[in-house]
C-alpha cells in the first residue's frame, strides 16, 4: 500500500510536539462561551456571603442574627457556634496549621469571615449582612513581624497551653507565642566560619513585599447536597480538585465516593486557588443545612483582602567570595510574615517551600538558610504566586546578593555570574542546600543572551549616560538589569513531596475510540495554561493520532484519575510525564495488534509517526486509526479488546528550568518613571511542546513580574487596615504599561522526564522580578546605590534619586 502524502505531511497532520498548534480553548473563551463557576445556575440555588470583620484584631463578644433573619429573602445565618457541633468551625490549613472557618470568639485580620448569610440572591444576602449585629472588643494590633516576636499580645491563644507553655507546632518548637516555626537547611557553623574568614563579604537586608496573585476570576464555589442520594457535588475554583475532595471528605466525614468535585473553567489561578477557603466550607455546610444548592463568589475586595497573599519575606543575606570573585559561602535568614494563620500552600515537609533553592545557579560550596515564620494581624496565605513554592523569593534573594557582591568587588555583575555558574559538566549537581539539579547549560545561555543584546555596547552607553547626566546634558539614567535564574518545579517525588499526606504524583488515563480518536483525562486542571492544547500534542506524538482527534478533560473527580492539580509548574513535569507514559502503554499494545494484523513478530514492526511499519518494508504498515478499530473489533488471540491505558507518575526528581533575562530601562530622575526600552528573555524549559504557548506564558509571567517589581503590593496601615483593597490602588498592568518582549531559548532536556520537558509557566515571573528590580537599582549604582526595596513604583524610584542627591 502507498500513501498519497509524504512523511513530513503525516508529521504535520498530527500537530504533535514542537508545533505552534493554536489553542483549542480559545474558541469558547473569546466568544464568551466559557463555563466558570459563577456561570453555574441550579434550580433553587441560594447565595451565601460573609459578614467580615472591620477590625484586624478584636474579640467578638456577641453575634446577633435575629434582625438579619427578618430580612426578606434571608434563609439562614451561620456562625462558628453553628459549625462547632459539626467540628467545622476550624479547618486544617495546607501548612499544618488550622484556620477559623468562621470567627471563633475573635478575629485576627481585617476582612476575616465572621458569619455566613444565606439568602435567595446576592442582594438579599447583602441586606442580611448589614443586619447582623456583631459586638467587637478591639485588641492591640500587631502588623510588623519583628514587633510580633517581641510583643506581649498573643494572637493565637489556641496555640498556647493553659500553663502558658508553647506546645510544638507542625514544624517543631516555637520560640514565642507569635512564632510559628524555624526551618533550617544547610550547615550553620561551617557557613559562618567561611564567611567570617572570607576575603570579601557583602551583606544586605531586603524586604520582598506582600502582594497578591489577583486572577481575573475571583474564588468561588457552588455546593449541592443531594439528600436523597447522599451525594455532594462541589463546583469551585480549585487548582487541585482531587485534593479538595479528599480534604472535604476528611473534615466533613462524608465518604469520598459521595463527593464529586468539579473545577469548571478557571479564569486564572496563579496560586490563589490552591488553598481551601472558608467560603468553600460554608457553601457546603449551607447546602447541607438548607437542602438547596448554595453559591459563594468573592468580589474583588474580598479576593484582595482575604484570600491568598503572596511573598512578605524579610530577608537578610551574607555572601562571601575571594577577591577575584569566586563565591565561597552564602547565609540567608528570613522572617516570614504569615498573617493570622499559617495557610501557605507548600508541600508539607517544606514550611518555607523551596526557599532552599536560594543558592541559585551558582556553584556555592557552603550555605545555610533559616526561616522563622511569624503570626501577625494580616490575612493568611503565603501562596506561590506564579512560581514554584517560594522560588520567586529565593531567586530574588540570590540575584540581588550577586549584584550587591558585584558592587563590593567593583566587578561587572555579568562576569561575576559567569565565573560562578555551575558548569555543564557538573550536572547532575548537588547544591549545598540539598537539591540535585538535573541538568543545565548556563554558560551557553548566558553568552547567547549577552551577545544578543550587545552587553558590552550597553555598558559603554550607560557609562556615557552617567557622564552626560553629571554634565547636565540629560535627566535620564540608564539601568541594565541582569538575572539568571534556576527554577525548581514539578513537585514532586512522593518520597519527599506531599500535601497533608497526599503524595504529589499525577496521572493520565487514555481511552482510544474505535474510529481512531481519543479522550485523555488528567489529574491536573488548566487555568489558562492551555492543557487541552498541549497535552493532546504530547499524546499525538506518542500514539500517532492527530491532536485534533484527542479530547483532553480535567477537573471532574468522578471521571478524572487522581492527581494533585496544577500549580508550581508541575503539570507538564508530572502529568505531562504521566501522559507520555500512558501513551507508551497504548503504543505497546498497538504494536502487538499491528504485528498480528501484519502477520509478523511483534519485534518486526516499528512505530513511525502515525503507524507501525514492518521493519525494512515501509510499504507494509497499519495506521494507528486502523489499529484502534481492530483493537475493539477484530478478535486477537490472547489480547483483551479495547485500547486504554492509565499511568500514575511519581517523578524521580524535580525539573530545573533556567533562563537568562536582560532588561534595559531609562529612568526619568525627576519623576521616577522607568521606561523599559528592551526586555530580552531566554528560557530553557527543556523539550518545547508548543512554542506559541511558551511564548504566551513568558509574556504573561513577565507582565506579572513587571507588576510585582514596579508597583503591585498589598499594604497595611498600623491598625491593620488593608490599603490596597481595590484595583484603584492595587496595580494590575495592562497593555498600556507592558513593553515589547523579545523571547529566545536554548534546549537542555530533562534527563529523567519521559519527553525531556521541564515546565515554563512560572519561569518568567521568577526570573523577571529580579531582572526588573536589578535594572532599577543598576541605574543608580554609579551614584552609590546598593539596594532599595521593591516595589519600585514611581514615587520610590524618585525617592531613591532624591536620597542620592540627584535633584540638585
Amino acid at each position, binding site marked *: 500500500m502507498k500513501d498519497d502524502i509524504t512523511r513530513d505531511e503525516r508529521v504535520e497532520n498530527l500537530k504533535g510536539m514542537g508545533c505552534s498548534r493554536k489553542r483549542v480553548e480559545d474558541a469558547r473563551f473569546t466568544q464568551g462561551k466559557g463555563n466558570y463557576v459563577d456561570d453555574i445556575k441550579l434550580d433553587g440555588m441560594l447565595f451565601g456571603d460573609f459578614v467580615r470583620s472591620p477590625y484586624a484584631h478584636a474579640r467578638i463578644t456577641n453575634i446577633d442574627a435575629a434582625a438579619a433573619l427578618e430580612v426578606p429573602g434571608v434563609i439562614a445565618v451561620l456562625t462558628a457556634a453553628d459549625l462547632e457541633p459539626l467540628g467545622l468551625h476550624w479547618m486544617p490549613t495546607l501548612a499544618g496549621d488550622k484556620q477559623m472557618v468562621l470567627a471563633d470568639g475573635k478575629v485576627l485580620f481585617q476582612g476575616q469571615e465572621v458569619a455566613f448569610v444565606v439568602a435567595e440572591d446576592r442582594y438579599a444576602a447583602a441586606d442580611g449582612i448589614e443586619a447582623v449585629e456583631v459586638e467587637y472588643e478591639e485588641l492591640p494590633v500587631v502588623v510588623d513581624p519583628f514587633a510580633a516576636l517581641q510583643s506581649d499580645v498573643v494572637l493565637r491563644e489556641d496555640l498556647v497551653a493553659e500553663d502558658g507553655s508553647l506546645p510544638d507546632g507542625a514544624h517543631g518548637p516555637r520560640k514565642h507565642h507569635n512564632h510559628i516555626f524555624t526551618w533550617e537547611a544547610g550547615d550553620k557553623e561551617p557557613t559562618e566560619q567561611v564567611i567570617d574568614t572570607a576575603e570579601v563579604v557583602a551583606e544586605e537586608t531586603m524586604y520582598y513585599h506582600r502582594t497578591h496573585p489577583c486572577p481575573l476570576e475571583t474564588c468561588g464555589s457552588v455546593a449541592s447536597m443531594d439528600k436523597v442520594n447522599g451525594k455532594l457535588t462541589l463546583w469551585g475554583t480549585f487548582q487541585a480538585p482531587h485534593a479538595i475532595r479528599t480534604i472535604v471528605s476528611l473534615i466533613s466525614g462524608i465518604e469520598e465516593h459521595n463527593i464529586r468535585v468539579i473545577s469548571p473553567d478557571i479564569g486564572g489561578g496563579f496560586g490563589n486557588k490552591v488553598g481551601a477557603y472558608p467560603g468553600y466550607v460554608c457553601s457546603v455546610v449551607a447546602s447541607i443545612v438548607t437542602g438547596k444548592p448554595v453559591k459563594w463568589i468573592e468580589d474583588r475586595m474580598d479576593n484582595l483582602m482575604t484570600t491568598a497573599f503572596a511573598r512578605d519575606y524579610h530577608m537578610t543575606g551574607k555572601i562571601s567570595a575571594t577577591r577575584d570573585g569566586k563565591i565561597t559561602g552564602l547565609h540567608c535568614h528570613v522572617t516570614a510574615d504569615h498573617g493570622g494563620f499559617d495557610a501557605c500552600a507548600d508541600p508539607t515537609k517544606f514550611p518555607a517551600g523551596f526557599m532552599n533553592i536560594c543558592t541559585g545557579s551558582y556553584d556555592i560550596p557552603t550555605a545555610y538558610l533559616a526561616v522563622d515564620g511569624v503570626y501577625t494581624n494580616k490575612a493568611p496565605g503565603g501562596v506561590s504566586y506564579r512560581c514554584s513554592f517560594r522560588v520567586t523569593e529565593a531567586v530574588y534573594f540570590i540575584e540581588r546578593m550577586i549584584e550587591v557582591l558585584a558592587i563590593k568587588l567593583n566587578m561587572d555583575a555579568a562576569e561575576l555570574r559567569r565565573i560562578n555558574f555551575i558548569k555543564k559538566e557538573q550536572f547532575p549537581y548537588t547544591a549545598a542546600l540539598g537539591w540535585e539539579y538535573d541538568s543545565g547549560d548556563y554558560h551557553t545561555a548566558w553568552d547567547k543572551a549577552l551577545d544578543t543584546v550587545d552587553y558590552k555596547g550597553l555598558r559603554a552607553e550607560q557609562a556615557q549616560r552617567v557622564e552626560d547626566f553629571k554634565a547636565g546634558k540629560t535627566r535620564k539614567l540608564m539601568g541594565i538589569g541582569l538575572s539568571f535564574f534556576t527554577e525548581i518545579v514539578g513537585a514532586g517525588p512522593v518520597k519527599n513531596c506531599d500535601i497533608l499526606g497526599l503524595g504529589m504524583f499525577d496521572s493520565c488515563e487514555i481511552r482510544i475510540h474505535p474510529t481512531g480518536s481519543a479522550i485523555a483525562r488528567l489529574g491536573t486542571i488548566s487555568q489558562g495554561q492551555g492543557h487541552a492544547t498541549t497535552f493532546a500534542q504530547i499524546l499525538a506524538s506518542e500514539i500517532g493520532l492527530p491532536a485534533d482527534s484527542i479530547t483532553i478533560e480535567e477537573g471532574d473527580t468522578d471521571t478524572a484519575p487522581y492527581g494533585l492539580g496544577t500549580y508550581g509548574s508541575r503539570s507538564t513535569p508530572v502529568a505531562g510525564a504521566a501522559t507520555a507514559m500512558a501513551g507508551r502503554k497504548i503504543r505497546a499494545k498497538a504494536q502487538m495488534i499491528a504485528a498480528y494484523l501484519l502477520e509478523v513478530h511483534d519485534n518486526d514492526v516499528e512505530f513511525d509517526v502515525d503507524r507501525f511499519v514492518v521493519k525494512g518494508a515501509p510499504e507494509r504498515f497499519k495506521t494507528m486509526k486502523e489499529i484502534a478499530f481492530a483493537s475493539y473489533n477484530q478478535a486477537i488471540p490472547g489480547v483483551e479488546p479495547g485500547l486504554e491505558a492509565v499511568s500514575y507518575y511519581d517523578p524521580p526528581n524535580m525539573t530545573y528550568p533556567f533562563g537568562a533575562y536582560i532588561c534595559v530601562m531609562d529612568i526619568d530622575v525627576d*519623576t521616577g518613571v522607568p521606561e523599559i526600552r528592551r526586555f530580552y528573555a531566554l528560557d530553557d524549559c527543556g523539550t518545547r511542546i508548543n512554542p506559541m504557548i511558551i511564548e504566551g506564558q513568558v509574556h504573561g509571567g513577565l507582565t506579572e513580574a513587571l507588576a510585582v517589581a514596579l*508597583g503591585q503590593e498589598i*499594604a497595611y496601615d498600623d491598625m491593620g487596615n488593608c490599603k490596597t483593597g481595590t484595583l484603584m490602588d492595587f496595580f494590575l498592568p495592562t497593555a498600556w504599561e507592558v513593553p515589547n518582549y523579545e523571547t529566545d531559548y536554548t534546549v537542555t532536556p530533562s534527563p529523567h522526564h519521559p519527553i525531556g520537558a521541564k515546565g515554563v509557566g512560572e519561569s518568567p515571573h521568577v526570573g523577571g522580578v529580579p531582572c526588573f528590580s536589578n535594572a532599577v537599582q543598576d541605574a543608580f549604582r554609579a551614584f552609590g546605590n546598593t539596594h532599595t526595596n521593591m516595589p519600585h513604583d514611581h514615587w520610590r524610584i524618585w525617592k531613591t534619586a532624591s536620597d542620592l542627591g540627584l*535633584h540638585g
Partner: protein
Amino acid sequence: MYNFEFENPSSIAEAVAALAEEEAQALGGGQTLIPTLKQRLAMPSKLVSLAGIAEMKGVSIADGMLTIGGGATHAEVAAEACPPLAALAGQIGDPAVRNRGTIGGSLANNDPAADYPAAMLALKSTIVTNNREIAGDDYFQGLFETALEEGEIITSVRCEIPEGANYQKFVQPASRFALVGVFVAKYADGVRVGVTGASEEGAFRWDEAEVALNSNFSAAALEGLALDAEGMMADIHGSKAYRAHLVGVLTKRAVSAV
C-alpha cells in the same frame, strides 16, 4: 446596591423637577456613582439620568469660545474640543469610561484627582447650571466640594480658547487618575496654571508660577520656584514632597510644550 427609583427625563426642566425630591441624585455617565452604589456607599432614593437630555449634548466652538454640553462624554470632548482639552479628555480612564463618563458629571463630583478641574481653572471657564453661571475660579471648593446647590445641574461649560495650552498628566498607575496634573494656558492678558491631584484643598491655581510666567513664558522662569509640600496630599502612591516636586516638573514640561 440598594434599591432606588429611576427617572429618565428628556429636558432640563423635567430633570430639575425630578431632582427636587429629597435624596434624589443626578446620574451623569455613572463612572463614579455606579461603583459607589455597588459598594453601598450611597443610598439615593431616586436616580435621575441626565443622559437623555438633548439640550445638554454637543461641543461647539464659536468666537473664541468653547462650549461643551454638561452631558457631553469624555469621548465627545476628546473628538471635538480644542486640542489641549481634547488631549486631556482622551487621557481619562479607558475607552469604556470615556464613552460613558460626562464632563458635567466629573465636574459635579470634583474628585481631587480628576483631570477636568485643572483645565477649567486654566481655561477661564464658566460653569453654566440650570439657574446661573459660576466662574470656574469660584466653582471648586475643596475635595468633592463645589459651588453647586442641592439639585442644581451643570448644563454646559464655557471656556475661552487660549493662544496656547498644554496639559501634563502624571498617571497613578493603578487607577490611572492623575497623581498630579498641570494645565497651563497662555492668553494675551496672562498665563493661568491649573493643578489637580496634588493639594489637600483640591484643584488650585499656582499663583507664583503664573506671576513668573507672565514676565517670562519659559520653563527657565520656573527655576527655583517650589510648592510647599505642606498642604499636599499623601497616600501609598506618593508623599507630599513627591507631589509638590511633580507639580514643578510638570509645569515646566507643560510650558515647554505650549
